[in-house]
């Protein structure tokens, strides 16, 4: 069996100090294998977003270990984490968070351009192909502000795929969409997962969305309460 893409061991996260300290994660251990599509389920305040941020190297755990692709990231400096994130992790957020002054194509190119320092022709071609993959070729030159909610989310997915990451972390990716668009987005994620073998960790509290994933991890009060793989 191959090594997991991402693994966290005994991760704790405490906000604040002393009497006002809030213990959000209480010894979470989790490993995500290559090609897995994992649903992270939990109520508001369960520690779901905090865990996602730590897994995405956007936040540091108070204690515990974070390993990705065999590399221990627990004590890596900010520049190392930034570069690692750029190469190996993609993000899809609930509120799209596209750069409003950029076109759909430029938004998709961002992870490549920010690393190279310029927009290469090769990256432009890949971004165009990704937009075609999410069905938005005809919107490539539209500014982010000119796109609908569903279109923005599909652009965000294309952007997450730009640097060919091993893992995509999606925080409530359908939370801001109507049911039809939500299902379209999930279909798209499932297709990418199948075709490219990219691992997904999708945070959601929507059972129907979770049901589309191959594994369900339930987090409650800062601990993993359940971890089940769907029968194949």
């Amino acid at each position: 069996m191959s090594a997991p893409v991402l693994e966290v061991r005994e991760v704790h996260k405490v906000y604040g100090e002393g009497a006002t300290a809030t213990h959000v994660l209480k010894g979470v251990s989790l490993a995500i294998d290559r090609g897995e599509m994992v649903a992270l389920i939990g109520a508001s305040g369960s520690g779901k977003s905090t865990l996602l941020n730590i897994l995405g190297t956007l936040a540091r755990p108070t204690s515990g270990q974070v390993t990705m692709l065999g590399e221990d990231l627990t004590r890596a400096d900010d520049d190392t984490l930034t570069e690692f994130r750029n190469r190996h992790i993609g993000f899809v957020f609930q509120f799209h968070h596209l750069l409003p002054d950029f076109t759909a194509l430029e938004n998709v190119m961002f992870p490549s351009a920010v690393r190279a320092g310029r927009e290469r022709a090769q990256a432009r071609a890949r971004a165009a192909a990704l937009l075609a993959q999410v069905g938005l070729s005809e919107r490539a030159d539209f500014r982010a502000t000119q796109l609908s909610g569903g279109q923005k989310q599909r652009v965000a997915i294309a952007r997450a795929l730009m640097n060919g990451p091993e893992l995509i972390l999606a925080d409530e990716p359908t939370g801001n969409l109507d049911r039809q668009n939500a299902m379209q987005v999930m279909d798209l994620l499932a297709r990418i997962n199948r075709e490219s073998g990219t691992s997904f960790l999708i945070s959601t509290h929507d059972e129907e969305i979770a049901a589309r994933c191959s594994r369900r991890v339930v987090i409650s009060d800062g601990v993993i309460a359940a971890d089940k793989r769907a029968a194949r």
Partner: protein
Amino acid sequence: MLYGAKMAWRHLGSAPGQTALLVAGVAAAVFIFIFMSALIGGLAELLVNRTLGNQAHVTVAAPDRPLPLLVPAQGRHILAARQASTSPSLGLAAPRAWEATLAAFPGVRVIAPKLVGSGVLIRGEVTRPVTLTGLEPGRESAIIRFERSMVAGTAALAAGGVLIGETLARDLGLSVGRAVTFRADNGNSVTLTVSGIYRLGLGQLDEAAAFVPMSAAQAVLERPGRVSAIELKLDDLYAAPAVAARIAAATGLDVTPWTETSAQLFEALRAQGNTGLILKVFAMITVVIGIASALMLTTFRRRGEIGIMRAFGATRRFILYVFVLEGALIGLAGGLAGALLAVAALSPFPPIEEVQPGQLPVDLGQGSIGLAIWLTTLGATLAALLPARAAARLDPVEAIQQ
């Protein structure tokens, strides 16, 4: 970094109203900077032209000759005090040699010896006290600009000729070609022919001065081969104290810069310069505060974007670069716009030499245009540092959530 520049450019272009306002604010400050520099510089030049235009920048004379003390007989005590400048100087001997020495000092542009004595000009029944000054023919206008001020005749002094002021000519009823007698305090007399009449607008020179060839002055004043002083004009007027100190140290002569003889004017020019400097500093502070506060708001408004950029691999340096570059671009654009505006507004002003009473003496050449653009760009860049650092230090998680 090209990509960072593109991002900065897009940010500025996405809020054209705000960017235009910022650029206009910077341009206004730069306009004030250039206008103040041109006005203060022009005013100083006008004052210097009008007051120092006919004076030496440095005057070199023989040191005072101390009077000997009378020594009392043995065993007696006396209290003695020596007064400075009570003894008339015989002047400088061998002026040609001194001229060669002085010419070797850097910054010396013009060298003109003069011999000064006093007496009266007599025409018929009328006499007028005058200061007689001997000048080297060919260098009559080296210090006092006679050639620009002639109302009759010529400024060139021929043998037996004399230049006098318009007021004195009127008092004595003289015109060019008329004869007049000069009688020195030592009793010697010489008959001169008026070769030119000038109007300098300076009372003493127009009313009670006469200028003759050096040889004639030396003869009538009985100072053969000597001059009272050698006057200098320098490339840089304000270098006079330093040049004077160097000459004094090297020659042991009595050297006086204009800043001593016209100390009040020097102080006034300095105060004027300081006032201008304060105004320019305030203009720059306005630029810095304006840009810093506007960019603070911009970075606050773009917190979410900054968070997402950080999530997708933008380093802190990249974020810093983008926002600092925005400040620099605003500074550069405002600097260029302000400079263009200043050039357009100040070009119609006449040159300082042609300024009439009531007109503003504005010298665009002293507007420090390059400095204004450079300082503004630098100031704007520094102003952007604070908000840019704040942006670069944003916690991506917090920024995305907001």
